[in-house]
């Protein structure tokens, strides 16, 4: 986390597991007790797609990936846009983006959620 880049917040739960995005409790009912900043870690690409038919306000094409972070014995998965082409198994690092899609263009109420976040950039 820096002044220009908020934290990529995953939840730490009472049973020691970590998950993204945060929920009040994890799948086993353990309560959230803290936060882990995923922006300080690299991840591996689990799978990816390039979507050419995107909704209003979304870049076209839109390459997306599911990635897996290994943190303290936990596998923490996340989904997000990529900055470049990726491959399964490739190492990526989170890169902050102030706005991932146009909040005004879709059906969701703009004030109901945040629109910034982290894309995944391949590590050379």
């Amino acid at each position, binding site marked *: 986390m820096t002044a220009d880049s908020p934290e990529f917040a995953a939840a730490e739960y009472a049973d020691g597991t970590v*998950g*993204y*995005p945060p929920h009040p409790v994890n*799948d086993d009912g353990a309560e959230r007790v803290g936060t882990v900043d995923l922006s300080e870690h690299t991840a591996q690409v*689990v*799978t*990816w*797609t*390039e*979507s*050419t*038919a*995107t*909704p*209003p*306000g*979304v*870049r076209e094409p*839109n390459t*997306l*990936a*599911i990635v897996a972070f290994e943190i303290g014995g936990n596998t923490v*998965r*996340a*989904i*997000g*846009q990529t900055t470049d082409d990726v491959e*399964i198994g490739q190492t990526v690092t989170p890169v902050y983006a102030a706005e*991932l*899609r146009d909040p005004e263009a*879709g*059906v*969701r109420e703009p004030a*109901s*959620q*945040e*629109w*910034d*976040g982290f894309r995944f950039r391949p590590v050379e």
Partner: protein
Amino acid sequence: MVAAHSAGVDRNTDRVAVVAASMTQFGERDGWIRDLLAEAGQACLADANATADEIDHLYVSNMASGEFEGQTGVPNALAHDLGAVPAYTARIDQTSSSGGAGIYAAWQSVASGASDCTLLVGGEKMTHRSTAEATDVIASLTHPAEYKHGVTLPSFAGLTARAYLDAYDAPRESLGAVAVKNHENGVDNPNAQFREAVELETVLESPIVADPLRLYDFCPITDGSAALLFVPESLAASYADEYAVVAGVAGATDTHVVHERPDPTTMGAVRDSGNAAFEMADREPADVDVAELHDMFTILELLQFEDLGFAQKGEGWRAAADGRTARDGEIPINTSGGLKSKGHPLGASGVAQAVEVYEQVLGEAGPRQVDADVGLACNVGGFGNCVTTTLLEVAE
């Protein structure tokens, strides 16, 4: 409301019977949601020679009439349009699995004794919206962490298809075989949106939508409606000479956030709802003669085929490629043409799946008919987020 036929109903032994079924033409329709629902509802009542004043409960399966059309309160509107006032009404919204959830609700209403005649009508009006707009309405079911990245249901399909092909060394052609099969089945369904066979080469060379999936791996955007009439089995003979019974029905959910599932190629809610429905029916996958699976995307047919127990994990892709799921195969899948060819009017789809199974087990499927006494319908909401599995059997 006091049930008109309640005398003679045995709450201890009665099963729930399906005595009538209907579906409208699927595709691009002139009518709006009220018109489509009324069309299917009236046809279903006519199929059973029933009148609207016999309806105790009226359920409407619908995902987004407010978002698509600005028309809410559709169950009340339908009750008035059918002449079913003062029947109890409710809207069943479980996104794309609203139809399956409606079957579960209708079954519960009759099995519990709350209703002796329940009409379920599923419907959606979508084609007046652009593909991008309709895709966004559907994508609004996603978690904020997904939605802000522009994640859509088709992109989930692309992500999952790549993971599946990579994990199980399955050929891309195996997904294309699903599209070819279901389009071939749709040719014989007069209510299907698309009634044209396609060649595998056409599927594999169609435009990319969510790599590695292409246009023909996806269902269309559709208007349409379908309906089923449920009564206690002890009353079924007064509505129909032949009827089906709900042998098993069960629903389950998976995580809201799709990437939080342990294995992207496993649909946990399909597995759980299927197991529970089989247990209720005292059946197993080998007993099923015909099945309608939720092929919103070709990859979903393979995943459901596996997670319902028709094939081992990672082996489902061989079934379509080898012809085992063809109409003349050992386990025909999507004889209606599936969502892929028949179309996918969200709230109607799960009901229409059961309409096809109903017609199959009663021997009323015309040129699509297969040898079937037991049929299964698996209706999926989101990307496996909510699932209802139903087993229908012909009453002996």
